């Protein structure tokens, strides 16, 4: 974008947007430091800093590097992935209620986890490494199913049909889960319920490694499609008139949304609300242009999940509240406040 073409008011808006991005980054850093200090074993901020620069003792190193840091990184990555996935879906469907849930991603992943737990309930060690893979497969299969059910020859996919199909398939999967729920033993039920509520339980570098490639590849890809998303937002006819090959672009963007949400959900469970709320908040902060909307939504999502996880860990020590619940309890009132305050 070339600054010389901008009017003073546009320049001002742009500066405001950059300051919002900067504020979000600062907020994430602050939450990061707080989160590092949060836990059963208290560390002072100085100890955290010293350990981060390699000066801490063995115990401090273990706590920070093996327990807290991976968890924090995962929380931020998951938030980013879900937020961008939601932003894509809201952008291409033009439906304000769209979030990764409408592609059946949460439901599919949940069903896979529940099936696994109800058929192989005893082993506690194995699932930890298998569950994310299963969840991802479940999420992906569901998305493919929904896509192929709503695909019609010559017409391709219309957003409305995609959403309706998604809702129906998700409802079907949820009812299958109700039936399975009744068969689970109480301990297994509790495990699945916590998983479904969305909690960052995979605090391990291996999970970071399984999540990171998706974001490293897909986030820049989606960002490069900002203009396409802007055009799609104007409406189908305008988009065709402007020369966008809608079907192809939409398919790629959908695939990206599935990849991001699937990877995120597979390590975090159902933190669905982030995908709904972060893009909306971002839109109200920086407007509908995806060049700013996408980074803002990503940072907001990361911040929300990190904050939620930190609060969820500290409020009821030593037991935890799933981050998904905290996100909804904190995010919803703020969202409602914005909704009541703003005109459109």
């Amino acid at each position, binding site marked *: 974008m070339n600054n010389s073409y901008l009017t003073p008011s546009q320049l001002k808006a742009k500066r405001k947007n950059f300051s919002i991005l900067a504020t979000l980054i600062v907020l994430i850093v602050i939450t990061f430091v707080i989160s590092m200090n949060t836990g059963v074993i208290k560390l002072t901020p100085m100890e955290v800093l010293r350990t981060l620069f390699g000066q801490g003792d063995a115990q401090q190193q273990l706590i920070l590097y093996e327990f807290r840091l991976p968890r924090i990184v995962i929380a931020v990555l998951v938030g980013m992935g879900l937020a961008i996935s939601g932003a894509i879906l809201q952008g291409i469907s033009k*439906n*304000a*209620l769209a979030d990764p849930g409408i592609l059946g991603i949460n439901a599919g992943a949940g069903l896979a986890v529940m099936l696994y737990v109800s058929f192989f309930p005893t082993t506690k060690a194995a699932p930890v490494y298998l569950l994310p893979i299963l969840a991802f497969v479940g999420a992906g299969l569901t998305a493919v199913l929904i896509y192929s*059910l*709503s695909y*019609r020859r010559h017409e391709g996919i219309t957003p*409305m*049909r995609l*959403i*309706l*199909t998604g*809702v*129906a*398939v998700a*409802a*079907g999967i*949820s*009812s*299958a889960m*109700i*039936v399975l*729920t*009744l068969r*689970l033993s*109480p301990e297994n*039920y*509790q495990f699945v*319920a*916590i998983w479904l*509520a969305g909690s960052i339980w995979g605090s391990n570098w291996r999970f970071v490694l399984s999540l990171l490639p998706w974001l490293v590849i897909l986030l820049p890809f989606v960002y490069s499609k900002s203009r396409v998303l802007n055009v799609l937002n104007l409406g189908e006819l305008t988009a065709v008139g402007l020369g966008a090959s809608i079907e192809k672009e939409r398919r790629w963007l959908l695939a990206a949304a599935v990849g991001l949400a699937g990877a995120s959900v597979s390590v975090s469970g159902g933190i*669905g*609300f982030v995908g*709904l*709320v972060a893009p*909306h908040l971002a839109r109200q902060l920086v407007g509908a242009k995806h060049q700013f909307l996408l980074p803002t939504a990503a940072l907001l999502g990361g911040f929300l999940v990190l904050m939620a996880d930190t609060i969820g860990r500290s409020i*009821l020590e030593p037991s935890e*509240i*799933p981050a*998904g*619940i*905290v*996100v*909804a*309890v904190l*995010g*919803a*009132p703020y*969202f*409602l406040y914005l*909704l*009541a*305050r*703003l*005109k*459109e």
Partner: protein
Amino acid sequence: MTTSTGVGELNDLEELQKRSHPIRGVVTLIVGVIGLIIAIGLSISFGAADISLGTVWTAVTHFSPELTTHQIIHDIRLPRVLGAALVGASFAVAGAIMQGMTRNPLADSGLLGLNSGAAFMLAVCFAFFPGLPYMYLILWSFVGAGLGVAIVYGIGSLSKGGLTPMRLVLAGAAVSALLGALGEGVALYFRIGQDLAFWYAGGVSGTKWSHLQILSPWILVAMIGALVLSRSITVLSLGEEIAVGLGQRTAVVKIWGMIIVLVLAGAAVSVVGAVGFVGLIIPHLTRYIVGHDYRWIIACSLVYGALLVVLADLVARVINPPYETPIGALIAFIGVPFFLYLARKGGKEL
């Protein structure tokens, strides 16, 4: 609601007439009522003790308390079937009104925060007052549903631009997420999630005459209200601006619509939990058949919603006796393929 008969109104209504099919409406309605009567008869006669349809008839017309079969019909099966019919009709009509008012095909009564409000209250009751009688559980569920609606509606009308459909939908989604999360949190902390699941799986099995006595007057009045309001909802479903242009006081229509939805869906949710899918698919189905006139959509939704839940309840009892399959699962099982078919076929009609 419309008082002036301008040329513009006539044109719009003519346009609407073209898109609605009264003859189909009458046929659909008659077929539905016959189907409903047959389904109710079958549902009463099937069960752990099979009872012939003739006995069902005499039990209704000449009830004699000495006969066991008559007692089974009178005390267990009849209230249950009537409960199922009431619940189904309520959900479907509430869903039809919601879709008409918000013009969002994804709208159902759950969007007003009803389902999550009721679920939250139920979780609180299970956690803090275990062993509360069924009657009170239903009442508290209804209070929860009302709470959900009150928050959604309050937020919506507090805002500067008034309660637009978009704002209603977003506020509903946010409140549902909030109350849902609180309920989930309570359920996880007190480890009562599975008890709640069993409650929801129970469906209409626990319905008794005393519950019907309390619920049915409210539901009947609300149904009549819905039918009275249906013409205004048709106008509103053309869009806010057109409705205002036609001289409709849209705010009045919306408030009444909301109250009717609260009574219908609140009562239904409190009895069976969130079997919300009925409210989503039945209005779509009827709109697909009878066109866009909400007088027909609401009347047909009433009948077919009742039919769907009565059938689902019947299948739930018969499929795997003596266990009952969760009714919500069955409704989804019947409804999902059908809805998928409509979504594929219907194109712009949906």
